[in-house]
């Protein structure tokens, strides 16, 4: 299986979308059943683009991240058991399979919102607590405490994660709503984090995006075939770490461009390492400037985070958040830092430990939320996510 999912676009997707629209009967109130009009011809390809849900691996990991995301974490009640969890996952898998292909979920009271999936993906993660509830040994463990952590309960932990991504915020909202409704009988919403990236069409897809701090973010990410050895286990599973990183933007504003570049180790404009000239130049940590100082400051984020072993890299898939400023006009902004890797303990923890020990960027970023989840393999049509674990 290739890491990029097959995108159904154009005619096929438009046909599906229109058919779904025409075939839908919305929940009716009394009089005449409110039918959903077929989407008018010539839907822009963005709206009708479909990322295949079914496959050996879950979608929403290796594809280029769509523009909008909601991360929804749930807490299971003490009464949760394996059979109940299997029922929950059957239900949620069915919803996700339908919604991602532009069809309403069964019993969807807002069926009109389903036909434009806009590359919708729904990715399921199982926290340590879900395995314990099912009487199983968790394959993931909570992160150790790091000295930089200022974790808040309201952004941390969780037994079940839904990562909902699409190029359209209304699609994300509808999907989030539908999935929460169907999860409610099984679990309570613990936290929701909504984030965004650049809108589709703003950049060429392979263009590295800037984050809310103005940095080109994603340069060193594994791409294409490099994703496999870092991310996917043999069975199609992986793991996700979600850390809410508050950006201290007021303080960041006070830096000169050069200060910002020293903190990251890359140029703000081009994203080139301070040892090079082009974005994708390999950082050269041995290069010295005229006075003998390393061109890449040894306390810079890139110097500290650097991973060279292809099997140990992280696939970072962060989303920006930008909440409501306070009365003083200070922003509530940062990153919903999400990273995928085969093994959290082998890959993520050492990097986070190095960054916690020393990273100048820490002066302007603060972890305020943290959660880990196993991402079980995908499923074939007719199967359900988690069947290997809970079935």
């Amino acid at each position, binding site marked *: 299986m290739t890491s990029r999912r097959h995108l159904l676009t154009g005619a096929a997707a438009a046909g599906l979308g229109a058919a779904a629209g025409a075939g839908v009967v919305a929940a009716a109130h009394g009089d005449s059943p409110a039918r959903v009009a077929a989407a008018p011809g010539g839907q822009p390809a963005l709206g009708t683009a479909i990322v295949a849900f079914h496959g050996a691996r879950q979608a929403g990991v290796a594809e280029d991240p769509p523009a909008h995301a909601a991360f929804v974490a749930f807490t299971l009640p003490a009464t949760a058991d394996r059979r109940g969890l299997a029922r929950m996952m059957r239900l949620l898998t069915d919803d996700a399979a339908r919604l991602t292909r532009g069809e309403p979920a069964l019993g969807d009271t807002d069926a009109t919102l389903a036909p434009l999936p806009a590359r919708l993906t729904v990715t399921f993660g199982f926290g340590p607590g879900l395995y314990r509830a099912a009487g199983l040994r968790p394959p993931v463990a909570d992160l150790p405490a790091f000295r930089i952590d200022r974790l808040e309960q309201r952004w941390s932990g969780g037994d079940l994660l839904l990562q909902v991504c699409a190029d359209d915020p209304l699609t994300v909202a509808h999907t989030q709503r539908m999935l929460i409704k169907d999860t409610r009988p099984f679990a309570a919403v613990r936290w929701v984090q909504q984030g965004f990236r650049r809108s589709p069409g703003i950049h060429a897809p392979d263009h590295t995006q800037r984050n809310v701090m103005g940095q080109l973010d994603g340069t060193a990410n594994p791409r294409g075939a490099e994703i496999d050895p870092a991310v996917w286990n043999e069975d199609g599973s992986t793991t996700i770490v979600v850390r809410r990183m508050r950006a201290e933007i007021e303080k960041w504003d006070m830096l000169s461009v050069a*200060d910002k570049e020293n903190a990251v180790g890359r140029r703000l404009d081009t994203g080139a390492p301070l040892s090079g000239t082009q974005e994708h130049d390999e950082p050269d940590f041995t290069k010295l400037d005229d006075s*003998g100082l390393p061109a890449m400051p040894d306390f810079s984020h890139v110097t500290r985070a650097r991973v060279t072993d292809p099997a140990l890299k992280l696939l970072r898939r962060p989303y920006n958040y930008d909440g409501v400023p306070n009365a003083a006009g200070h922003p509530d902004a940062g990153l919903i830092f999400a990273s995928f890797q085969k093994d959290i303990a082998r890959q993520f923890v050492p990097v986070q430990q190095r960054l916690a020990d020393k990273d*100048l960027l820490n002066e302007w970023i603060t972890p305020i939320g943290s959660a880990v989840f196993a991402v079980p393999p995908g499923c074939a049509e007719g199967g359900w996510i988690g069947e290997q674990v809970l079935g």
Partner: protein
Amino acid sequence: MRPEATSRRNRWLGGPRWIQRLLVAAAAFLVVALPGVPAWAHAQLASAVPAPDAALSTAPAAVTLTFNEQLNPEFTTIVVSDAGRQRVPASAPAVSGAAGTVRIEGALGEGAYTVAYRVVSTDGHTIQGSYGFTVGDAARPPVAAGESSGGLPVGVLIGIGAVGLGLAMVAGYLYFSGRRRQRGSA
């Protein structure tokens, strides 16, 4: 500004109009540039042993740099290089308050050396700079003293007046070259 409207103060300043223009431009430049130039407001090297440009007869066993504010040990880099730009083996910086010390491993031979530092002030600005010293009869250090914050070279040991004058000259240059470009494109 028409000549007859020239104010008393301008007359007192005197000189041809280009000097007036230059002063105005320099003032404007300082106002605009100052907040973005952290070198004055933030950590800077207060003293150093060996001192900048020192000509030593015996090799120093350590280099100690003292700044005008506390150092963060995590973000303190001090390196010593020889005239061939080879790093001199030395310990990691030991930080105590505002001072950072690297112990030099082995004895330095005769020659010119460069001390370079990169430290971070309490509010996160990076300050870096370098200076030279010699051991024995070697020629004067090849690397000019300098301090920078983000690559903008600023004389450390010269007074504010000198800095101002330098800036004024830069500003004047920018001002006139800007006018020339404008005229050229008109």
